[in-house]
């Protein structure tokens, strides 16, 4: 009898937890709309951009695969304290990022993060890339196809160098999902049909795309 009661209690608790998580994502969607995030970001995939002009017309990055791209803890923190990821304003080569992305309260940030983390892409296979030291990945990243030309990154001693046109890779190990980095390198146009970053798939071997993903996801 006690066992039956315990089982019912466990099932009830599970249902409550699942319901609460669902409610959070729903509240997050409501907050996302109430805060007018939809004015700059779209969350319903697949990618909508059909031309460079479409890409340039956007005010902020697409978020329809945010749950595959970001790490939940980072996203929740960033929404409350949105420090610039890009040195330049989105889609601009001349205007500095004003650092004026709206801040969310702790509650809204948790809910919006839940909502965005529910937006995933089946193109991102889970558990393929583990962040780790990859000498080959580092060599490609720094010398063969110098990603540093467009992206900032930090040396072991913390010195930040690199170009300004791409998003910073300082702290990227906490920001991006390693599996997304590889999926993006492998099939970038699935996520961004028009992007200022070259496509390296077909130029670098698949194994090396994985090496770069390991190296990038290991950056501090």
């Amino acid at each position: 009898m006690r066992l039956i009661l315990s089982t019912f209690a466990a099932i009830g608790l599970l249902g409550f937890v699942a319901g609460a998580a669902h409610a959070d994502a729903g509240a997050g969607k409501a907050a996302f709309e109430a805060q007018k995030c939809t004015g700059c970001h779209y969350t319903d995939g697949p990618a909508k951009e059909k031309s460079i002009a479409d890409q340039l017309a956007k005010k902020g990055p697409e978020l329809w695969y945010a749950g595959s791209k970001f790490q939940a803890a980072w996203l929740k923190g960033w929404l409350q304290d949105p420090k610039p990821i890009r040195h330049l304003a989105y889609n601009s080569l001349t205007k500095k990022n004003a650092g004026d992305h709206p801040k969310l309260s702790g509650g809204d940030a948790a809910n919006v993060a839940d909502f965005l983390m529910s937006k995933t892409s089946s193109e991102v296979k889970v558990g393929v890339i583990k962040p780790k030291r990859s000498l080959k990945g580092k060599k490609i990243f720094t010398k063969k196809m110098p990603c540093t030309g467009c992206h900032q990154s930090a040396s072991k001693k913390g010195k930040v160098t690199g170009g300004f046109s791409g998003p910073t890779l300082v702290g990227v190990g906490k920001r991006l999902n390693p599996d997304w980095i590889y999926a993006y390198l492998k099939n970038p146009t699935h996520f961004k049909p028009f992007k200022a970053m070259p496509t390296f798939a077909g130029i670098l071997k698949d194994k090396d795309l994985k090496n770069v993903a390991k190296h990038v996801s290991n950056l501090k």
Partner: protein
Amino acid sequence: MKKMIKISLLAAVFGLAWLVNTETAKAAGAEETFKFYCAQCHGLEGKGKGPNVTKDFPVTPRDFTNAKEMSKLSDNYIRGIVMDGGPSQSKSPLMPPWGKTISDADVNGLIKHLRGLCKCQGKAG
């Protein structure tokens, strides 16, 4: 007969207008391509001063407005370096390969755009 001449003249005027419009559209496409992909290092004006060229940038991106230097480069050399990257022509890997990103038509448009920036022709070859 007069009617025939009038019709021919009208057809010629419309044809010319269509040609001008098409060429303008092509030129706009090449400029858009240049600004989207190339300007991040070469600058919106093509002078080699894009936002990636910080004090740490180890090379000087080419100034496309320098007619003297640009006239030394053939169109095929430019096509090769754009599509296959700097190392394919013994230049810096900071010039990445765009061959899997842009089309042959895009690179042809870019070459025309660069020739417009330098107001020069390339050497043969």
